[in-house]
């Protein structure tokens, strides 16, 4: 079951904030966030686990709501370098590979 991301695309001016959401119809065991710039490979941003454990880059923040089966990625004071497609991935069960959402395309303009 593929997680659903919203919005599909967003355009920001430098310094503005954005929130990218990831929701699932199944129970979430973990949520993994990646960013992919055009023509490049996906790069890890953050993992959020049941129980509140997180692992990721200091400048990125995210939330994980197990009851609502959703996660949100918070991008504050956006920079041009934040531009790219953001993917969330979740395992369908506790021990299965990640299924990624369709991505959210973020464009930051000067």
């Amino acid at each position, binding site marked *: 079951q593929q997680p659903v991301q919203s919005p599909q695309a967003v355009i920001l001016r430098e310094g503005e904030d954005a929130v990218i959401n990831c929701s699932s119809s199944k129970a979430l065991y973990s949520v*993994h966030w990646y960013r*992919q710039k055009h023509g490049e*490979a996906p*790069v890890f941003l953050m*993992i959020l686990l049941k129980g509140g454990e997180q*692992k990721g880059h200091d400048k990125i923040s995210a939330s994980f709501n197990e009851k609502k089966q959703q996660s949100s990625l918070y991008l504050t004071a956006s920079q041009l370098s934040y531009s790219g497609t953001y993917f969330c991935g979740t395992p369908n069960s506790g021990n299965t590979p*990640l299924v*990624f959402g*369709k*991505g959210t395309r973020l464009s930051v303009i000067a």
Partner: protein
Amino acid sequence: DTAVSQTPKYLVTQMGNDKSIKCEQNLGHDTMYWYKQDSKKFLKIMFSYNNKELIINETVPNRFSPKSPDKAHLNLHINSLELGDSAVYFCASSQVWLWDEQFFGPGTRLTVL
């Protein structure tokens, strides 16, 4: 030093041919993966390989087969290539099965004519 490398970067071939993509990681990771990213940018897991245990995405045709000569390598073999196989293929690795960040290779763009 490159953490996860793939060769070739570009691969153009005719329908019906057999081809291979090589992947190597120098991170000492225990788990490796193959992903397919289609023209709509949908990133789909194909295989996960952890300590010689292979997990196959059931939607992957059996024309695709991973081969791991050792822990640092996971190559992808594709037989009887079809037009729909055209995509970017990414190799990735992680230290821990699933619960860890994945490091992606630069990708191999496969074009089937």
